[in-house]
């Protein structure tokens, strides 16, 4: 059924494309010929703006991945490609606060891509932004006596994340558990996949402090690197960074590693949207499969 859908649309849109190409050349042949003769190298190059004007590029079947479907390297196209492409069309070139319309479009795309209900605003509450630069945070103390020596479950984790160090203070909600014995897998995940967001910049934060505090505590958020499509379910466990830092949120060492984001001069942007999960069914951690 879907194969016939594809063929139907492909044939229809290819015919439309051929008609448009003919019309374009019939109406503007002189200018296009001039360009072709004077800028042959550019036209024949990889410039997307003009590729379509050349004979080869005007036939999408030649340049489309489907034309090379028999080649194994091309057969497996990561679904993240679509996500990255869709997001790139909406996101501004500079990292800035998104408009409500942009947020809505992006939340639609993310909800669809990950099979989750995500939104920039939940229950009338929203952060200061949903698109910003992420910096690195340190590990948080999970229970009294937790140190780097007790923090990791395996040598692999220790080797990967030891160097990030332990934050000198508590997270926003203090300890995750009252003791080592009381520490659950959920507590571990909440620390491992935490983010720090600028809760204090929420509108009316000071006058609605208790309401916001309860709302933000371990609130799940979908954090997406728009450049590679990698996404993780994180929880809010700390407040920060400061406004003057030039960063808008922070990620635990594990979050940063998974998203392939770095601090300092290489810092990059992420999207972060609330997850509507009233029954608390969605697990924290990386999302490996797109829906």
């Amino acid at each position: 059924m879907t194969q016939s859908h594809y063929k139907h649309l492909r044939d229809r849109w290819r015919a439309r494309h051929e008609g448009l190409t003919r019309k374009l050349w019939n109406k503007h042949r002189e200018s296009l010929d001039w360009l072709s003769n004077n800028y042959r190298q550019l036209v024949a190059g990889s410039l997307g703006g003009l590729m379509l004007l050349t004979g080869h590029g005007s036939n999408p079947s030649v340049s489309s991945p489907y034309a090379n479907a028999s080649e194994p390297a091309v057969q497996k196209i990561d679904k993240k490609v679509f996500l990255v492409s869709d997001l790139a069309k909406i996101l501004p070139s500079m990292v800035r606060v998104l408009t409500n319309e942009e947020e809505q479009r992006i939340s639609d795309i993310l909800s669809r891509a990950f099979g989750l209900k995500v939104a920039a605003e939940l229950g009338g509450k929203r952060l200061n932004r949903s698109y910003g630069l992420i910096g690195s945070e340190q590990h948080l103390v999970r229970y009294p006596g937790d140190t780097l020596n007790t923090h990791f479950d395996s040598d692999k984790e220790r080797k990967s994340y030891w160097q990030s160090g332990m934050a000198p203070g508590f997270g926003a909600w203090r300890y995750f558990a009252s003791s080592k014995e009381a520490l659950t897998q959920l507590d571990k995940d909440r620390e491992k996949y935490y983010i720090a967001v600028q809760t204090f910049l929420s509108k009316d934060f000071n006058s609605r402090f208790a309401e916001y505090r309860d709302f933000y505590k371990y609130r799940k958020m979908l954090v997406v690197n728009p450049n590679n499509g990698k996404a993780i379910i994180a929880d809010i466990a700390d407040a920060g960074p400061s406004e003057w830092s030039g960063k808008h949120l922070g990620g635990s060492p594990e979050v940063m590693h998974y998203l392939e984001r770095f601090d300092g001069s290489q810092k990059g942007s992420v999207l972060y949207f609330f997850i509507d999960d009233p029954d608390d069914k969605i697990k924290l951690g990386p999302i490996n499969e797109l829906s």
Partner: protein
Amino acid sequence: MKKYFYTHIVDTSSLSLELADMSLDPKERLHLISLINSNIHHEVLDLILSELTPADKKTFLMHLASDNHDKVWRFLNSKIENIEEKIKKTAEDLKKELHKDIKEMLAKS
């Protein structure tokens, strides 16, 4: 995907999402998206070239070839009134047609 000088004002995500609903193979969906973009690109180029004098057409195509979006916009804004709105409308009209194609196909199946 390639960013054209007008990409920021032409949003094709509604079509992309509609294709996503059809459970197409990723390669097929990618191909259809490339056809959508290609169709829009040709319509936009036809719109612009139709509004320019022969000499201005050459200048525009040179800027387009250099892939300098700022130059393209500066030139177009100086030569064509409300060009941004015209590009948006052209793309929207085509998108409606493409949505209609999908709707008609689904109605038949």
